[in-house]
């Protein structure tokens, strides 16, 4: 409560405040801890005492056991190790795509919002058009015929999901640019570039933050869907791809498709829980209610 007396513009302080409020959301907190576990695994999996996820030296179709907690797959690879390694692929596709989407979205959105006029009209129209193209079919087509390396998948997902970010940023910038501090910057003669990148965009980041986390979640699901259609990158371990190959053996070796699916659910749910809590916290309604009481 004393926070009000401190500077409102302190970036890190803002996030500390955010965290203080976030802590009260149990679901979000659970999601956050789950996510820490997933991140930990993704970062440190090379140092964990695991079998080589690519090695095909084991017997195929071993059911879960002490030495292979999740069993082995059709080529004799250790599924436990593959599930853990798969976190890297999923997270990098998720974050990569969300990053691409955020960069493009922020650029388009802030330009449209700040410059306004004809340009805004044009960019808004482009955003509308992109919003109305069925993204999954488009991604599917591009990945199917142009190739399926994970960088490609990231890029394509990012480039087809940016419009929602752009919309949020545009609205944010529209309301921010009328504020006094921006007016002050204009009066003292700051360049448009400076105003945009130093003042406007950093101040409109918070709402995008929640949206981006949800985008990471949906990108992970998208990648899994693509891999499930056999369109994943063969050089990395991907949960969707594991489910795809497990589909063939669902009758006899359920564990091949089961565990990667659980991994997806856990990862995506953790992100959704965090994102949902953030959306609730950051929505203006909640803020109003907080102030009212």
């Amino acid at each position, binding site marked *: 409560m004393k926070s009000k007396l401190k500077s409102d513009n302190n970036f890190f302080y803002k996030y500390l405040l955010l965290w203080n409020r976030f802590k009260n959301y149990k*679901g979000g907190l659970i999601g956050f801890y789950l996510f820490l576990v997933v991140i930990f695994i993704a970062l440190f999996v090379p140092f964990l005492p695991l079998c080589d996820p690519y090695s095909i030296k084991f017997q195929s179709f071993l059911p879960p056991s002490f030495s292979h907690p999740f069993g082995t797959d059709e080529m004799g690879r250790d599924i436990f190790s593959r599930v853990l390694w798969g976190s890297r692929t999923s997270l990098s596709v998720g974050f990569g795509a969300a990053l691409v989407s955020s960069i493009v979205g922020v650029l388009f959105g802030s330009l449209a919002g700040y410059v306004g006029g004809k340009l805004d009209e044009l960019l808004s129209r482009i955003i509308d058009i992109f919003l*109305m193209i069925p993204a999954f079919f*488009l991604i599917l087509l591009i990945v199917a015929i142009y190739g399926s390396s994970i960088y490609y998948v990231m890029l394509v997902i990012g480039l087809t999901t940016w419009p929602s970010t752009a919309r949020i940023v545009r609205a944010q910038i529209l309301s921010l640019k009328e504020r006094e501090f921006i007016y002050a910057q204009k009066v003292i003669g700051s360049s448009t570039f400076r105003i945009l990148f130093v003042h406007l965009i950093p101040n409109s980041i918070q709402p995008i933050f929640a949206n981006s986390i949800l985008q990471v979640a949906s990108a992970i699901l998208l990648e899994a869907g693509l891999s*499930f259609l056999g369109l994943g990158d063969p050089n990395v371990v991907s949960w969707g791809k594991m489910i795809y190959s497990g589909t063939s053996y669902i009758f006899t070796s359920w564990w091949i*498709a089961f565990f990667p*699916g659980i991994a997806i659910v856990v990862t995506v*749910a953790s*992100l959704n829980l965090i994102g949902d809590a953030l959306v609730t916290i950051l929505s203006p309604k909640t803020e109003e209610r907080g102030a009212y009481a």
Partner: protein
Amino acid sequence: MEWKDYLLRRSAQLLLTVFFALIINFLIINLAPGDPAALMAGELATKEYIEAVRERWGLNKPIPERLVSYLLNVLQGNLGYSYTYLQSVSTLIAERIPVTLLLTLTSSIIAFFVGLLLAVKTSQKAFSKVDLFVSNVMLTIYSIPSFWLGLMLIGIFGVALRIFPTSGMVNVRSTGSGVFLILDIAYHSILPIVTLATIQVPIYYKIARNTIVEQSSEDYVSTFLMAGMSTSSIFKKYVLRNSLLPPVTVFALHLGYVLSGAALVEVVFGWPGMGRLLLSAVYSRDYPLIMGIYLVTSITVSLANFFVDILYTLLDPRVRYK
């Protein structure tokens, strides 16, 4: 007058969107590496033979020329002929639409009502343990990949318990007619519909719950409360009515994806719908068919958006024509 202008402007926008979507798709498809003629010609074909196939389908012409003639054809309502099915694309698509709609529409409607009902039940005790629990469970369900859920349902109900068929739309051995055919299709559609509905319930639940919670703390609620109205009457008469619009909007927007939204589930359940038609078209490089499916799906999405906007202006007079 204002209304008429708005309608006109919005329609123009709709056409523009579809037009651009069409061009983008055309370019993506036709600039892609790979030669449909070579695929059509088969493995032991000679070069001369492939050239003949290319000529037959007009693939030897330059891309701008193909684009223009395609657009002209579309304007006349001609989506062209499928390379692989040798049938008009519109017939092929028209055949698949009801098949897919059966899954998507039914599941969306079920999901809408289940989500709404759950939301009504839990939102009256907003922020209670039950409410938070249900909310988090919903978020978790929302995180399940549809194809995986379908696969697991097949594993449990189709393979282990043998209660439901695992694939297809009818039992071919005894293709019935009339009521029996309908029952057979209904029976085959249960698992895919359950899968699709489960995935969608959280969407409607979330929007309905949040709206109801939000509406429950609106000023008019305390106005009526202070006027002596019981909480339950306020909820029934006012809160619910005020909370309907957002879920209905989401529902309507989702209708835009009725054709493309079930692709993965169709694959899992061997359901002969649009999604599978597209996949097979992509793999056999059936350009006219791919284009046709994209066109139709873009139109549905745009139309859904269009109607939502129009409905909004009709249902919620707060919205002004922008």
